[in-house]
């Protein structure tokens, strides 16, 4: 009896260990991807979006932070500046731009909407303040702008 169970469970055992290794390597891979993106821009004084979700709970690749050094669009399509494969994002979801040192966000007609501090925004540009919570799709970002 014991022999049978042990023989069956040894396969389960091996498979579980390899699934563990796979998940760890996958998480590390996500880590490196975001590391390469960040390099070079991190020292400069641009505002950025900081991800609040835990990345290992998401099934797609997303960076820890996105630097807003110029006009940036976000969405699922590859022509966007920030491409995120969240199924709840629209192809062209939202846009960030700056005028006279003030940063604005506008929704580009997305299906599931964009929210700043839980208020839905439309195509009209909305100014962003340091610490604003931005929700798009399944993602929640925080807008960080160091006060000069």
């Amino acid at each position, binding site marked *: 009896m014991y022999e049978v169970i042990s023989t069956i*469970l040894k396969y389960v*055992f*091996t498979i579980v260990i*390899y*699934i563990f*290794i796979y998940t760890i*390597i996958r998480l590390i891979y996500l880590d490196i991807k975001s590391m390469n993106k960040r390099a070079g821009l991190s020292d400069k004084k641009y505002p950025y979006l900081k991800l609040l979700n835990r990345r290992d*709970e*998401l099934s797609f690749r997303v960076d820890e932070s996105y630097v807003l050094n110029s006009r940036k669009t976000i969405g699922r399509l590859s022509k966007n500046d920030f491409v995120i494969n969240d*199924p709840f994002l629209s192809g062209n979801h939202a846009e960030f731009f700056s005028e006279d040192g003030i940063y604005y966000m506008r929704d580009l007609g997305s299906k599931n909407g964009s929210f700043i501090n839980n208020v839905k925004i439309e195509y009209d540009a909305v100014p962003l303040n340091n610490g604003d919570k931005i929700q798009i799709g399944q993602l929640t970002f925080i807008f960080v702008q160091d006060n000069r």
Partner: protein
Amino acid sequence: MKNYTRFVKPVYMVVLINLIGFLLLYMYSKPNNNINNNITIFAGFSVIALICLTYALILKLEMGDEYLFLIVSMLMSIGIIMLYRLDRNLAQKQIIWLAVGIIMFFACYFAYLKLNIWYKVAYLYPIVSYILFIITIVFGGGKRGANNWIAIGHINVQLSEIIKVLYIFFLASYYTDPDKFRDCTIAVKRLKIKINISKQWIFIALNYIFIGFLFLQRELGTAFLFFGVFIFFLFIFGSKISTLVFNAIIACIGLVFSYFYFYHIRVRFDTWINPWSDISNKGYQITQSLFAIGSGGFFGTGLGLGRPDFVPEVHTDFIFSAICEEMGIFGGIAVIFLFFIFAYRGFKISLMVKETFDRIVALGITLMFALQTFIILGGVIKLIPLTGITLPFISYGGSSLVSGFISLGILQAISKKA
């Protein structure tokens, strides 16, 4: 498909491995009724609880890199399950050591972060280490040809495991700021000779004293380990070719000398080159290990169905043979894989962190683990001559486990700074 990752979090895998393992162990001991099986259940749950609690704390306190502990807890789970199958009393002791180790892990994590004195006391590390060595030599007891244990109460402590950490700090404080070690001038006035010894040579000499002490205690594995780390550091920090060659020559002379003058080193070499000629005596251990690894096949015999007890010292140095026999070559490769990812994480932390001292400490700790794994796994599979040393986090041994967790705590603290 959506968010499937929520269900395959790595920490669940570790828990699952422990559940499967201890379930098997519970059933395995059924026939002998004289053993209290409730202890098995209790042991299993305490291991799971310790791992989950530590992992939760690491996440809650945002202690930097979270993968390091996960990888280590997986290695540890495999080790404890294997140990429990080999000898339940040792495994229960090991679980107590695990609890001590985790306390030390947190203590070292906070000590390293809060105290900022580690790079200032460069001279203290060799002095403390040498004192510990001398204590071991004077009060130490022998065990299996090595003379490296001291008894505190009922517990045998292997001080060289602590010296490993001190040694890394010593290397790091030298390379952070070599000027802390002054040039030394020996002047013999009567003969009008002035010998100027530069700090580099003082540093090299201090290193050889470390290795020499280990040799005296017949801890060949650890001596080899220290020398490996030393050579790697010389290479990484761009020493001159002549320095490297000089050290290589010293090592060769030392090896040849010890081959002819120390019997036990000659035995190690002979059994490495041909263990089959004296299979019943000198070559017994290594050949039994090879038989054990071979008899496992791809998936192993299954937990409790092999005969790893033929291998002497199977619970410490040779635990890898037992893993290969009962969990198969795939299990063995998984262990090597886990050490690979661990080393990779360590090197990445070392690259990310800004302060030089932290960088070098992270590098040293990672190198130490990686080389230690290489030396013992290579020895067990007869790739290199066998030297007795523990497999980090897997082998039985309180000192080794606690020292492993101390290093891990420091690495964790450095990853927090990165």
